[in-house]
């Protein structure tokens, strides 16, 4: 059993193996290291064979976990040995022992390069592998060109080229410029035509890295990837050696699907169709088989296909297929499949429209929360956390709480944090939130961080309604015999502040409260004592008339700590005692704590920052991406825009008694604005006016004059608009002949329209027979839209008609639309648009085709909306302020207080603005609650026109804000202001019934009448 004839090495390994304990092993290793060291010192004595043997020993010792600080030089020197066996050892051991920053590695660059450009292909392979594994920047600079040449060389054999591909990947990561070569992306595409599977597999990994960084450059590779997949799926030209348990290289399939997930979409309809055929086949054709390996391999491909389908946001039908599959997986016994089912279902939450289907599996997921396998429990917890919303929060949180007491320690902290976050985010009412946290502390106090109980204090302090309830609850818990110290802290704090609200209840007199809290005193640590002292001082203050007995008891406690070694405790004891002798002064100083300023939940922040666990991170990030953070104020019924179901936002102030004043101010401001004179600046109380440079600057301008007549219809405009857009949504499809909706649209038309307002390509309309896609390009006031009319059927669509009904401000020309669309074909109809003047009116596509005897005639709003004619522009303060000043009030500068705004944090508003092509200029406004944005508007009339926008938000009430818009054109200012307002208040209603039945009062226009643009526009808007 000699190690390739190296007897000494075998003996050494046997010796190690026979060691009885770690100590013996260490002695044997030390002896060997001493031996090798003397051998290496006497360099002449060591032949290449000996060197080879000793270098292996060093690697072996290193693998056992012993530090080896010599022998590196010998390993490196073997690289330049002339014979293969020595060279090979040199390469392998070097790449195990050294890292890219090691000095010795630099010594080898030349030898490595000689092997790479030399003729010996086995040497080439060795050298490429070393560079691929540990090559650094210097290698990238000196070798990239040679490696590239090898990869694309036609004379080079696959065994070299496959290594060159991954070597290049390493060099690219060290220095991305190595692929900045003209025509590299074409070469890359050619590589994907490769027939050798080794080369293809490694090239695919290279492609994944390149595309993940810059997909734009590699569009040409996309159809090639789909071709590769098709070949594999059909098992065409797959050599037997690459078929694994009957499955054509599952690894290549998986990698290829991974590469496709880095392209944002697939626009070419043919490619998309081919890919979906493959995916469909995978989704439908993967059966459970007996052979474990075959089963695993086929499911590896299946899970990757699921991920790709989710990424491509496929048709609803396919999506529900995916959800159904996942639903099946999370219920199977086989743990790997169940684990992956849960993991992928969590990813699925990102896809809109399926949340409700996922919720149906809640009970099943909860079962997995109790699985004996921690990996599975983690996934289940993550999924539950991700799918939680206001509708199921109670169930899920209570389930987590229940599980908490039996959960193992490794998970308790995570569970507590998640329960606390969910309770805060989705509490249907505040008292429930308090209950949950108290239970949490009761059951897992050690795992409840201070942040959690601080947050409860904030909520209770800021919500008067909650205070009595919280005090009562605290009183209940503190009565229990052994409670966690965190519970002592929280209850003591709350009782100190609010126990006077309970005064008339039995067992709640100040004396009784004091004595039950004081019972816990001997058990608490120094960090809790100061809190208790404050509580006592407060109890004392609330005891009116003073109770001498209680007073003496409490003074005794203070007295005891007046000489405490802990400075904090001592100071409190001394001060409280002195203060409490002052009578009335105590009242002021110990008065109830003021309300806290609104702030982001420290918990959620903590969760976002935490690096603790990948499992934890993923879901929290996902959650953060999905939903806004919970710093909105009031429990609102408003629907957030991102398609999630209505979420009751917990808020710090439920009864906005303090912010009432502001609101009144704001209301006052509005009425005055309408009436005539001034707008009162509803500055949030926390902001210091002196720091508000813009405010100062704007102040006088604002008061100057009455707003122009154009700004009048403010207050009811909001509701009016909302009604309008709803009506439009409802009317978006009006089947002409029969009201019973023979042809139902797929997906929500209004939602699709709203999505297209923010992006330039996507589906405008779809029903079982036709799909209308749109792709648009915008340059200044010109736009070019292409309508893709795709017949999904196997029969031709006839009597196709498309009529554009442009509003007066748009000039639109649609090229000829063919009367018939052949089966499974797609026709493209370009549509030219010129914007004449600013307006929010919307163009309508009156589209019809005949199916059987029925005419289907949807009327579709076209996304040629105002923001498409905007060009983002960043302005500097030097440019901004003079402009802002020179546009001095109506009609060029309009201001309005907007209410009923969908509450969103400022960052979200900023990203909304950016997606509307309004460039947010950070730092221009010194007040962090305000935001300034700029953009350029283009139309024939106005030409390029700079627009400036300022939003002032009130952190205490996110449902209102003040908006100022300025530009050089009165109509533009007004239209832009109204447009932004619509974006802030009107919400694309998520997932409604697919085809809203038109209200009966609305006469359905017959096809002939529908050619009158006026009628249709009136109906739509």
């Amino acid at each position: 059993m000699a190690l390739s004839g190296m007897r000494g090495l075998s003996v050494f390994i046997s010796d190690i193996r026979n060691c009885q304990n770690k100590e013996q092993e260490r002695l044997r290793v030390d002896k060997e290291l001493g031996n090798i060291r003397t051998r290496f010192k006497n360099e002449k004595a060591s032949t290449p064979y000996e060197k080879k043997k000793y270098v292996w020993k060093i690697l072996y010792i290193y693998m056992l976990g012993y530090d080896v600080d010599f022998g590196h030089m010998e390993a490196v020197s073997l690289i330049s040995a002339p014979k293969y066996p020595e060279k090979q050892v040199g390469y392998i051991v070097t790449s195990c022992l050294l890292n890219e920053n090691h000095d010795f590695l630099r010594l080898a660059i030349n030898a490595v390069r000689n092997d790479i450009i030399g003729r010996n292909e086995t040497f080439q392979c060795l050298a490429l592998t070393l560079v691929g594994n540990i090559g650094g920047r210097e290698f990238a600079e000196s070798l990239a060109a040679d490696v590239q040449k090898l990869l694309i060389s036609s004379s080079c054999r696959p065994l070299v080229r496959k290594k060159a591909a991954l070597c290049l990947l390493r060099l690219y990561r060290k220095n991305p410029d190595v692929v900045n070569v003209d025509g590299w992306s074409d070469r890359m595409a050619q590589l994907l035509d490769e027939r050798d599977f080794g080369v293809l597999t490694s090239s695919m990994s290279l492609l994944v890295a390149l595309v993940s960084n810059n997909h734009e450059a590699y569009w040409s590779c996309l159809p090639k990837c789909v071709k590769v997949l098709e070949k594999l799926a059909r098992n065409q030209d797959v050599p037997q050696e690459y078929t694994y348990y009957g499955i054509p290289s599952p690894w290549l399939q998986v990698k290829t699907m991974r590469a496709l997930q880095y392209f944002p979409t697939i626009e070419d309809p043919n490619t998309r169709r081919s890919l979906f055929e493959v995916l469909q086949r995978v989704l439908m054709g993967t059966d459970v088989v007996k052979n474990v390996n075959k089963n695993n391999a086929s499911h590896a491909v299946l899970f990757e296909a699921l991920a790709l389908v989710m990424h491509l946001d496929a048709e609803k039908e396919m999506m529900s297929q995916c959800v159904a599959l996942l639903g099946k997986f999370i219920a199977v016994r086989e743990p790997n499949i169940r684990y992956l089912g849960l993991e992928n279902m969590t990813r699925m939450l990102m896809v809109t429209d399926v949340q409700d289907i996922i919720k149906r599996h809640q009970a099943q997921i909860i079962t997995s929360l109790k699985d004996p396998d921690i990996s599975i429990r983690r996934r289940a917890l993550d999924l539950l956390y991700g799918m939680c919303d206001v509708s199921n929060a109670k169930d899920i949180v209570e389930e987590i709480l229940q599980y908490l007491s039996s959960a193992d320690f490794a998970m308790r902290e995570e569970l507590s944090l998640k329960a606390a976050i969910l309770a805060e985010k989705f509490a249907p009412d505040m008292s429930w939130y308090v209950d949950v946290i108290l239970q949490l502390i009761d059951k897992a106090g050690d795992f409840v961080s201070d942040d959690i109980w601080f947050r409860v204090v904030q909520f209770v302090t800021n919500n008067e309604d909650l205070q009595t309830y919280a005090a009562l609850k605290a009183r209940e818990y503190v009565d229990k015999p052994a409670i966690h110290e965190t519970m002592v802290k929280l209850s003591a704090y709350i009782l100190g502040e609010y126990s006077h609200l309970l005064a008339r209840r039995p067992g709640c007199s100040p004396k009784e409260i004091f004595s039950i809290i004081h019972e816990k005193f001997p058990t608490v640590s120094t960090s809790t004592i100061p809190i208790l002292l404050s509580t006592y001082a407060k109890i004392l203050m609330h005891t009116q008339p003073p109770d001498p007995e209680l007073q003496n008891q409490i003074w005794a406690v203070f007295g005891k700590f007046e000489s405490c070694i802990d400075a904090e405790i001592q100071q409190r004891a001394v001060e409280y005692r002195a203060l409490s002798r002052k009578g009335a002064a105590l009242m002021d100083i110990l008065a109830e704590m003021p309300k806290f300023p609104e702030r982001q939940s420290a918990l959620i922040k903590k969760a976002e920052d935490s690096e603790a666990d990948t499992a934890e991170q993923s879901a929290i990030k996902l959650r953060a991406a999905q939903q806004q953070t919970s710093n909105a104020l009031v429990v609102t019924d408003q629907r957030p825009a991102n398609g999630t179901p209505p979420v009751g936002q917990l808020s710090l102030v439920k009864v906005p008694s303090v912010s009432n004043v502001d609101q009144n101010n704001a209301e006052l401001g509005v009425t005055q604005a309408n009436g005539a004179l001034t707008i009162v600046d509803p500055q949030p109380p926390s902001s210091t006016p002196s720091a508000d440079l813009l405010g100062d600057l704007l102040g006088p301008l604002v008061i100057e004059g009455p707003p122009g007549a154009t700004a009048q219809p403010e207050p009811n405009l909001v509701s009016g608009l909302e009604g309008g857009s709803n009506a439009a949504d409802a009317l978006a499809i009006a089947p002409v002949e029969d009201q019973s909706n023979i042809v139902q649209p797929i997906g929500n038309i209004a939602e699709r329209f709203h999505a297209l307002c923010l992006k330039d390509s996507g589906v405008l309309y779809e029903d079982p027979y036709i799909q209308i896609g749109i792709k648009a390009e915008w340059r200044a006031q010109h736009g070019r839209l292409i309508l893709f009319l795709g017949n999904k059927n196997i029969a031709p669509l006839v009597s196709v008609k498309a009529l554009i009904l442009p509003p007066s401000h748009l000039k639109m020309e649609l090229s000829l639309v063919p009367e018939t669309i052949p089966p499974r074909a797609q026709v493209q109809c370009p549509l030219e648009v010129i914007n004449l003047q600013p307006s929010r009116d919307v163009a309508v596509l009156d589209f019809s085709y005949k199916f059987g005897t029925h005419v289907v005639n949807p009327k579709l709003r076209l996304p040629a909306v105002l923001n498409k004619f905007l060009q983002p522009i960043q302005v500097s303060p030097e440019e901004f302020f003079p402009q802002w000043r020179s546009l001095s009030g109506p009609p060029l500068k309009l201001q309005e207080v907007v209410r009923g705004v969908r509450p969103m944090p400022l960052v979200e508003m900023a990203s909304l603005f950016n997606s509307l092509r309004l460039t947010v200029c950070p730092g221009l406004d010194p007040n962090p609650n305000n935001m300034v944005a700029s953009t350029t508007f283009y139309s024939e009339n106005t030409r390029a026109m700079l627009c400036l926008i300022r939003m002032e938000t009130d952190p205490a009430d996110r449902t209102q804000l003040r908006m100022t818009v300025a530009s050089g054109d009165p109509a533009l200012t007004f239209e832009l202001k109204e447009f932004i307002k619509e974006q802030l208040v009107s919400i694309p209603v998520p997932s409604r019934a697919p085809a809203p039945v038109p209200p009966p009062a609305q006469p359905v226009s017959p096809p002939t009448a529908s050619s009158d643009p006026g009628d249709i526009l009136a109906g739509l808007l």
Partner: protein
Amino acid sequence: MGIRFILMVNKQGQTRLAQYYEYLTLEERRALEGEIVRKCLARTEQQCSFVEHRNYKIVYRRYASLFFLVGVDNEENELAILEFIHLLVETMDRHFGNVCELDIMFHLEKAHFMLEEMVMNGCIVETSKANILSPIQLMDKAS
């Protein structure tokens, strides 16, 4: 990046082969190997083959007395890695004939050669057993 490391560890937790595709210091390796070996070896047959640890996901498989542990990042498909382990074992089987722990111990260099033909820079290079083994066979012939 994909595969971060491949470990072969016996029932007693002794490392029989370690190949890293990212640089970790010796102390980091020792700590990491200790932690994951403890975690994985304690698991039962009925539990799944994936363990989450720090930023890694460990995909592991047990063959008699030997555990194969592969550390991957989020870029990898877990089941594909699980079967890749099996492919590695089958390849070793083809070469050694029913591979066992001792084969790997006493032919560490061959195990390394095979791995080097299969994985490079954390990515899979080759999955054909014939292609993986051909350089080793060449070498055996030469010596």
